[in-house]
Each structure stands twice: as C-alpha cells, then as structure tokens.
C-alpha cells in the first residue's frame, strides 16, 4: 500500500514536471500549469500541440529520461494525456 501511494506521489510530481517542460519547450506562454487537465488529450486541445510538437517532445523525453518512443502506435498510446505520459516514463525510465 505504502509503495503504491509513493508511486502516486512520484507520478504526480512527474506530471507537473512534464507540464512545465512541455510549456517551456514548445514556447506556450499563455497557459498556466493548473489549467491543464492531467487526463485530457495532449494533441488537439487548447494547448495547440500538433504532430511536430510531439516529435520534439519525443527527443526531449529520450534525452531527459532515457525513454525511447520510436513509433507512431506507441506514441499515440503514450501521448494520450499527461497522466499516460508520466506513467509510461515512470515505468520505463533509465535516467533519473
């Protein structure tokens, strides 16, 4: 039980870290972290993120977490939402 809640806390932190990273890397200036729904789709919402941005995030995620997302099918699953992205990175990260 304790481990599970620990995971929840870490993923929560990771989600915030990822949101900050995404806004910074994609130069999105007019939205605050709290406005972003953890479970909303990343692409095609008010963030205005498209496929080029996703590819940009792919390189950053590999660089910063050692997690490789090198095909479209996996990408669609992982980038479904910030929650799914954080979970995937949490489960697969090789860089801390």
């Amino acid at each position, binding site marked *: 039980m304790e481990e599970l809640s620990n995971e929840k806390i870490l993923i929560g932190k990771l989600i915030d870290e990822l949101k900050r990273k995404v806004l910074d890397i994609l130069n*999105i200036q007019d939205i605050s972290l709290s406005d972003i729904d953890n479970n909303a789709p990343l692409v095609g919402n008010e963030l*205005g993120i498209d496929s*080029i941005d996703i*590819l*940009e995030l792919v390189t950053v995620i*590999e660089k910063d977490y050692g997690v490789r997302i090198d*095909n479209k099918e996996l990408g669609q699953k992982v980038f479904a939402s910030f929650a799914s992205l954080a979970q995937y990175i949490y489960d697969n990260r090789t860089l801390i």
Partner: protein
Amino acid sequence: MMASEGIFITGSGILNPLGRGHLSTLRSLKNSVRGIRNINLFEVAADQLMPVANIDTPLKIEDGIPRTHALALAAAQDAMEGHRCTPDAIVIGVTTGGMSKSEVLLNSGVKSPKEFAYHGTGTVATYLAKHFSCHGPVFTISTACSSGTVAIKIALELIRQGKANRVLAGGVDALCWFTYFGFLSLQLLDPKGARPLDRDRAGISLGEGAAMFLIERAKNPPPGSVTQVLGGGISCDAYHPTAPHPTGDGALKAMRDAIADAGIDAADIGYVNLHGTATMDNDASEAMALKRLFGDRIPPLSSTKGMTGHSLGAAGAVEFAICSLSVSEGIIPGNIGCMNLDSSLGILPVLKPESRPVKIAMSNSFGFGGNNASVIIGSVDVRPPDRPEAHPRSLQVTGLACLTGAGDMDASFQKFSQGISIAGTLNNEEISKDLSQRYVRRLKRISRMALALATAAHKNAGGGGKPSSIYFGTGWGPLSETYDFLTKLFESDMRFASPTDFINSVHNAPAGQVAMEFKSTGANMTASGGDYSFEQALWISSLLASEKEALLLFGADEMHKELSPLFDPSVALDTTPSDGGGAIMAIATTKPSGPTVTPLVYVMALKDAGWTIMNDLNISDDINAHYGAIFYGIPLAYEEMARNQLTNFLSHSGFRGPVIDYRKYTGQYAASSAVAVVLAIKTIEKGFLSAGLTGTGEVSLGKNGILVMGFGPYCTAIGIHN
C-alpha cells in the same frame, strides 16, 4: 518565342545511386536494382542506422569543394559533353548547398570564413557558371523536395519568354548529417528501406544525386535530342509545414497546371513518375490527387524512390531523367520496394519494369512547405501547340513593407530619406509584435520577419485580396534554426536533433509560413543565391506570374551572431550587425500603371560591365531621360571589384544624377536589396531626394525612375518607375 518551335533536351547527365550516365541508369531500371543499403559516407551509431541510397561511383572532387558541387559538376559535364556552346542561363535546384562540408567544419570549431566559401546554396550554380563560362542569369531554387522540378519549369519559361536560347538546368543534393539526422528525428526513415505504396510503408530512404539538362529551343529536333520539355505546373498546399494536403488539392493543381501548360490532355500521358516518397501521408495524398485527375483511366505509374532513394532537391531532376528514359527507351520502371500493395490507395502501380512505348510522361515532385511541381516531357515528334509570344512581366506595386534596424517602413524611410543610417537589428519580440504569440511560438527569427513583412505589406495594400503566389529571396535562409539544430546534434554526440528546427531550417520555410497565412495556393518560390537572392526572386516572379496575378515578393535575411560572419564574408567585415527585409504586394502585368518594379539586368561580373549593363537596360537614348537616381549595393567583401564595375558603368552610361550607396545605410546583409527597392519606391512616391541623402542638395525626380543596382560577382539592375 516563335510558333511551332520546340524546347528540346539536347544533353543530359545523371548521377545517382543506380549509376552514372543513362546507360547504367537504364540498366539498373531494367534490373530493378534497389540502390538502398547501409550508409558508408559517414559513421552512424548502430541504433540510429537506417538504410540510405548513397552514390558509390568514384567521384573526382576538387580540393575544398563540397560533395554537392562535385555531384553537380559531374552531371553537368555529362550534359554538356559534345556541346561547344555556352549556356545562356543556369537554373539549379538544391537544398543542402555546401552543408556536407560546413557541418564538419562547424563540428570541429573552425571559425575561418574562407573555409565556408562554398556553403551557400547559390554557390553550386555559380561554380557551374564559372566552369561553363555562363554569363547570363544564374538562379538557385530552394523549394525543398520540389527544387529540381521547379528548376526545369523556370528554364522552360526563360526560353519561352526570350530571355535565353539554351539553359543548363537541374537539381542536386548530397547526403549529409543535417538531412540524415533531421529525417531521423522526424521518424521518417524506414528501417526496411523505402516501400512506396506498400501498406506497411514507414518512410523514405534518404538518397543523393544530381541530374542536369541542356535545354534548347529549336524549330526541328536538334541532332541527338530524343525528348522535349512540354510544360510545367507549380502550386502550394498552403496547408501545413510538412504534411501534404489530405485530399491532394495542391498536387492536383500542379498536375492540372502542367497539363494545361503543355497543351495536352490528361489522357495523353503514358507514364507518371510519382513523387512516391513512401511516407504514409505523401502516398495517400498523391494517390487521391491522381484519382481526382485521371478518374478511372489512370495511366501506368510508379515511384522509383524504392530504387534511387529520395535525393531531396535532386529528386525532381533525377526523375525527370528517368521520365526522359521512359520516353526515349520505351520503359516503364517498376515500383520497387512495394511488397504488399496498399489497396486502400486505389491506384495500381507498375510493379515490375515493362517495355512499352511512352510518348508523353509526367514527373511529380512535392516538398516541405507544401511546395508542389509537375513537369511534362514528350518525345521529339510530339508537336507542342502554338502559343502566344510571352514576355516577363513587371510588378505593379500595391503595397509595401520593410524591416530594418530602424524599425518598420515608416521609421526606416524617415531616417533613410534624411541620410541617416537604418543599420542594426531589432529583437525577435519587436519583429513579431503584431503577430499572435501562439502563431509564432515555433518560429525563430527569419520566419517571424517573413510573416511580419507579409502582413504589413498586405495591410499597406489596403488589406484586400490576398496574394495568390509568393516569391521569396534569401541569401542564407533560417540561420537560427540551422545553428540550433546542429548545436543540439553535436552537443549530444549525434544522439538528439530537434525536428522543429529541422523543419523550419529549410530555406523555403518562411515562404511556406506566409503561404499558410494567406492561403496562397499559387506558385511558392524561394530563390537563394547569396547577395542576389531577392533579384532572383524578382526575376522568377516576372517569369512565372500570370497576367493580373496578385503576388507577394519579399526578401529577408537574419543576422546570426555565430553563422552570419562565417557564411557571409561581407557581414564578417562589417562593424554594425544588421539584418532585415523588404516586401512588395503587386499585380504582375505587361501593361503597368503607377509604381512598378521591373527586373532588367542579371549578368555575371564581366570586365567591361558598363557595356553589358547598358545593353540589357535597353536604353538607346540618354539614360538621364529615364532615371533620376541610382541606388547601388556593394557587398563589402567585393568592394574593389564592384567599385570598378560601378565606375565603368557610370562613365559608359553618362549618368549624371545622384548615386546612393544603399548598404551604407542598411548595413551589410544579402537581402538589403529588398529594402533598397522598397525605399526606392517610397522615394519615387515622394518625388525628390533630400539634401541629407544626396549630400549636394535636394534633387527632384520629375517623372524619372530609380535604378536599383547591384555589383560584385553579379551585376544586376531593377527599374523602379512611376
């Protein structure tokens, strides 16, 4: 041009992964040789290894010359073999220029501008011009993967409109880190090699190549010529920086325009060489366009990129050569690489090479920025329809804008007209202050300049109709993106590259952004020939625009503190870092009224420049009866040579009015001529030059125009009239 004349291919050279020359290429096409294998040009980490199509043919490379130039020269020499003539003009499509050399130098920290003398895309065409002693217009097209095809269409128009009798035209690109790791970051390289039209296709195989053609007009087919250029069409999706239009609108328009231009019917086409890159999106969009064009009578077609790979700026020229072989040898090449045909596409390619007569073939090329081009090639016995004599058009100005170190056009003109410097640089936020942050968040410097210039010029024109075509000249393209892309790549030991920087680093990205903004689906041209890029864009607009077409012509260059002084020798010598650009909204017409811009002279530097310029200016009486002032630009790096040309011209012409050195005010950058043209138009509107500018007192222009001239490696003149 005279009725019933044809435009024939009298010489051609092809160098590609299938071999050098027509015989070896033909043999490879007949044997369905897949030229795609592991890269041997440079080292790549095992987990980044993707098959490519690199050229193994031994290549003689002159000391210090980049691979792109060597490939171009080899193909051009083959095209010119047996010809004693000199081409009147050269048009080259290329995207990488000297990047294969520059990236290695940059990675080793080399800081000497001399080492980068062959970096510019325009240096390829100039290298060929020197080799073949061509003095005429020398143009460089950089419209990503449609470049090679566009070059052929421009060659065709130079001939049709009486500006040249024989043109050397083609495309070239060499494999380099930049494009390899760029496409890798876009996840667009298929680990199994390109599989065009396959249901499991997963991207391109990057290739390299060069194909050059000597194209000549003649009443009857010249000895040895077996094919002719019948027509070409150019369009822009104006939809997305990289993804093609989902239902192929732009591709369809390019093909329809090419067919109309050739004066044939779609049913006359016996073979289509597809763009067929083997990305999911391209093949789907192109198939859609083909079905819309041909209905249920689709001619034999194939993509040859499963054999040759995708050689970017060279692809269109290489495939034009393949189409020429198809017509001359009666072969339909196979769509090699496709194992399981994607039936959802609804088109059926020729899977294995077939022998059958082809009288007319069409080649498609589409690229980043939504740039599309199609060309039509026919056997020599096809009789092209008579067409009315055509001439290059002038641009009737409807709106203006510029950006300089002094700010926008009003701020710039106010200072300039009083003889005060407008050199310097604005910061990125100032440049894009009138653009929405959301819209420009992914754009660095030059694309912001482009959008700011385009929207300001449109507003200045009264904000009415949007331009249907876009013409852009840039000496160096997006330097911020180029630098950031390479820096990230080098710092990560080739592990990481930015796909956003890659996409936005192509020279035609700024013009593509403008096309998206205005939904401009006509031609979208980017010329990139160093200090003369804006002049080239102007010439090309006057050749391609149709009567009464609304267009936007602009030029821009950005100051990048690391790259500009390395690439541009004049920037290296200047003390005030400067950049900017100018934009003109215009109507193309042969019967202009009001302020107009007309391209007059574009020649390579000659000893006796004055005589040649006067000849091309076409003034038989007193030059002072036509022009009241000259604004001239001398790139600092060519000061001595250019001063001599200017002196020679002034004494030869007997010009007596004020002669203004505009770079003294704008600072040193390639696109400063775009600013000069805008300032010249403003000066004509005002009617006089102030004492501050002339240094000798106020000078009224009366009804006279202004000549905006360039000196240095090329001599240029643009006429501004009221």
